[in-house]
């Protein structure tokens, strides 16, 4: 019951979820196989969006709560690597496809 | 009504193959057929006999026919034996001498020469020139290929790569186009030239290259036939053809101008500079030849270049040529008699233009 209530309260949310999942499928469904690797790499970079969570975590931590701060810090570092490195490496990969 | 079939004296053709004779027989014509009329083209007397034709001597045939079919020649003696009102159908090169015409007139006979047909769409099913030119063009290439001492297609073999033969076609009328098509089939590299620049598209539609000379004169009123060109143009054209000819392995010339001497396209000098082993087939040899050296009906070899002069290559395909010729004549007959023997449509373009003219009339006309 509680689950149902949760669902009912978040119906907008759920719809959003479903539509987005659909959209994700739709976008990828016809991708040519040569792009599998760059696409994976690019979307991997996008998954680094989790960095925002870590930023919020740090912003909401007491300046003295070093556990929170440092775990947030590490989180941001890791996620940044994911984002920045991911996009950069994808770019390198796609550069190869350019005509020499 | 009796249809008489005469044996052709000059060619291997027969104007009515048994298949067509059978059709006419079924259309209630009597068929009288000169002995051995079809022998030369592979249709024996027996075959005619089988389909109900009477086999008779030439004289008998002429005496009994209302309609008489033949090839390109008819003797004065024959004409004088004709029944009155006879229709004579053949291909008389468009004209007859005054004696012949007189004989015709005397017997109230009418002669139709199918090579005078207008080159219109409607007349095409009777168009003897088309049928025979097409056969000849094909045969010209095949004969040339047979005489040529090498492959036409490119061949990469363990003993070396043989490049494809270069074929040059001069005059891309019906015969020329057919030669082009056949050469392309066999894998040769083909170039073609014609004075009528409208042919360019047709040549290209067969995948061959068209050699262009600037400034040709065209005359749409000539009904598709070529006309004479200016001196300047001819000079330019000669230089171009000369250079291409020197590179060619096979040359086929088909350039005819009706009732004129054929234009010289390959001169002695050119032949002298051609590669030994090359082959020239001159299909205009009967009207003087497109090659200065060619002799009608002969093959000569000069500096290793074989020059074949043959305006009637279809003779080498007598079997099918006769079939096509007969079909053409049959179509013409059907047109002629569509309203009955009494109402031959002399007014129509097709009939009026096929009426045999005197030699003079032709010369004046053109």
């Amino acid at each position, binding site marked *: 019951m509680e689950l149902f209530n949760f669902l009912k309260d978040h119906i907008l949310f759920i719809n959003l979820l479903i539509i987005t999942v659909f959209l*994700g499928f739709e976008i990828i469904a*016809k991708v040519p196989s040569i792009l599998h690797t760059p696409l994976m790499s690019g979307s991997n970079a996008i998954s680094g969006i989790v960095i925002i969570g870590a930023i919020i975590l740090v912003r909401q931590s007491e300046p003295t709560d070093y556990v929170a701060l440092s775990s947030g810090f590490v989180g941001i570092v890791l996620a940044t*690597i994911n984002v920045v490195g991911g996009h950069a490496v994808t770019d390198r990969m796609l550069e190869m496809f350019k005509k020499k | 009504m009796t249809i008489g079939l005469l044996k052709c004296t000059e060619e291997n053709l027969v104007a009515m193959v048994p298949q067509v004779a059978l059709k006419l027989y079924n259309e209630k014509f009597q068929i009288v057929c000169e002995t051995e009329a079809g022998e030369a083209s592979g249709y024996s007397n027996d075959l005619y006999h089988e389909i109900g034709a009477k086999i008779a001597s030439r004289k008998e045939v002429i005496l009994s026919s209302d309609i008489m079919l033949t090839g390109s020649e008819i003797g004065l003696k024959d004409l004088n034996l004709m029944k009155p009102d006879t229709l004579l159908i053949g291909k008389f090169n468009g004209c007859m001498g005054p004696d012949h015409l007189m004989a015709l007139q005397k017997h109230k006979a009418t002669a139709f020469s199918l090579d005078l047909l207008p080159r219109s769409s409607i007349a095409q099913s009777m168009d003897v020139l088309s049928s025979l030119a097409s056969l000849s063009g094909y045969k010209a290439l095949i004969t040339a290929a047979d005489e040529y001492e090498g492959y036409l297609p*490119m061949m990469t073999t363990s003993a070396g790569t043989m490049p494809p033969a270069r074929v040059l076609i001069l005059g891309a009328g019906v015969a020329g186009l057919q030669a082009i098509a056949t050469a392309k089939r066999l894998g040769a590299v083909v170039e073609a030239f014609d004075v009528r620049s409208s042919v360019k598209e047709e040549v290209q539609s067969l995948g061959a290259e068209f050699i262009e000379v600037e400034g040709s004169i065209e005359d749409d009123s000539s009904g598709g036939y070529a006309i004479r060109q200016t001196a300047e143009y001819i000079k330019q054209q000669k230089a171009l053809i000369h250079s291409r000819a020197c590179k060619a392995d096979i040359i086929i010339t088909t350039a005819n101008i009706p009732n004129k001497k054929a234009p010289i396209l390959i001169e002695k000098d050119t032949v002298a500079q051609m590669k030994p082993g090359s082959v020239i087939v001159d299909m205009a040899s009967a009207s003087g030849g497109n090659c200065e050296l060619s002799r009608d009906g002969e093959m000569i070899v000069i500096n290793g270049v074989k020059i074949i002069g043959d305006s009637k290559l279809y003779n080498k395909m007598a079997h099918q040529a006769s079939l096509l010729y007969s079909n053409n004549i049959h179509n013409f007959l059907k047109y002629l008699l569509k309203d009955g023997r009494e109402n031959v449509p002399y007014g129509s373009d097709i009939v009026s233009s096929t009426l045999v003219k005197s030699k003079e009339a032709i010369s004046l006309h053109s």
Partner: protein
Amino acid sequence: MIYLELFYIVSTVLLLLGLRMLSSPSTARKGNIIAAVGMGLAVLISILDPIKNDHGNLLWILGAICLGSLIGLLYAKKVKMTDIPGLVSLFNGFGGACAVFIAIHEVYKFDATQSLGFMGTTYLALFVGGVAFTGSLIAYGKLAGKVRDWRNGISSYFNLFWLVGCISLILFQIYNPSLYPFLPLVILAASLIYGLSFVWPIGGADMPVVIALLNALTGIAAALAGIVYDNMVMLLGGILVGSSGIILTMIMCRAMNRSLLNVIIGGFGSAVHSIAGERRNIEKTSISDVSINMRYANNVMIIPGYGMAVAQAQKACKELDNTLSNKGIHVNYAVHPVAGRMPGHMNVLLAEADVPYSKIKDMEEANAMFSDTDICLIVGANDVVNPSALDDPGSPIFGMPILEVLKSKNIVVLKRSMSTGYSGIENPLFSNKKTKMLFGDAKESIESINKEIKTMD
């Protein structure tokens, strides 16, 4: 300033557009940049946007970002092309780790007011993030050759059991939130272990699939974290990556003729052995690999042999030639004197397909051209490209001149099997490092390649 949040929408749209453009060859690169801009914007907003409980801590944040960017860029610059898949996996693991850090932190902030759904979401983020983290690390290790495959009969049963265990633990925890304070840590550990045990048994050829899957998992973890923080960009970006990642995984599985389930639960040992029977040292390739290589080549040499005749692939070759030529790629045909079964066999067929004579090179010409050739496409030829004619005095064909394809940069061989040609001898070309084999009927292969290349830009 309080409306800054609205700009998240812009950033979402950019991410969406970026992903969209990434999935089409001609726009992919621009798409990557657009996605990066969207990401930057999102980060900027997340830093500046007014939130409750804000304590700033800007230095920490900026420091971390600088450090992370530095490391990320460095790695991306330095990595060798061949190591990229491993690096992507490593990066992905970092994303998962970040989710883990956030989740474990949030979990310990729970109090009685938290709804079941919210708690469940957070623990799920923890679990998924954890699996993505260790799984990616293992995958990276395998690709870098640092971790060996390990698999035995029970691994898949263990995985199944462990998965059920993790989920039960989470359920237990959210229904009894404060019973055992150490339980969240146990859950974390269990998740990390599951990541290890899940990826470890998966074999080399399946690695790309696994990486795609792990990538999707990181996306899901991000989305879950987005729910936790009620942050739209995280949610949508995460879901997009998650859903597109999963379908990508499925597509890749299909291309390899594997089922996703088979890959996930470790294949129950079946798929591994099928590869065993094959000759060693042969590198197989795929239609799409060959296609991309040809599409971005400058000079392609087609080498027809008797197999082209058998497959009647001459017209397919010509069409491929047309497609490539339209894209400005030079295509020629190298005809060996004894290719086929009669002198001029290839000539006959190529002429039938209307290949212009100027494109047909004989052995000498071709051998002079190979050093400038990017790809040799060997269409059912065998003996005529057998290098033992050049370097193996014991070979029955030693001394025969051949097409020296090894001078070219890449070689792709189209044939149906490893069987020999007319002369019945093995061909060391096939196991050469430069050579990739594409098995199958030559006509079908070429038609597929042509189709694929046509779809590119």
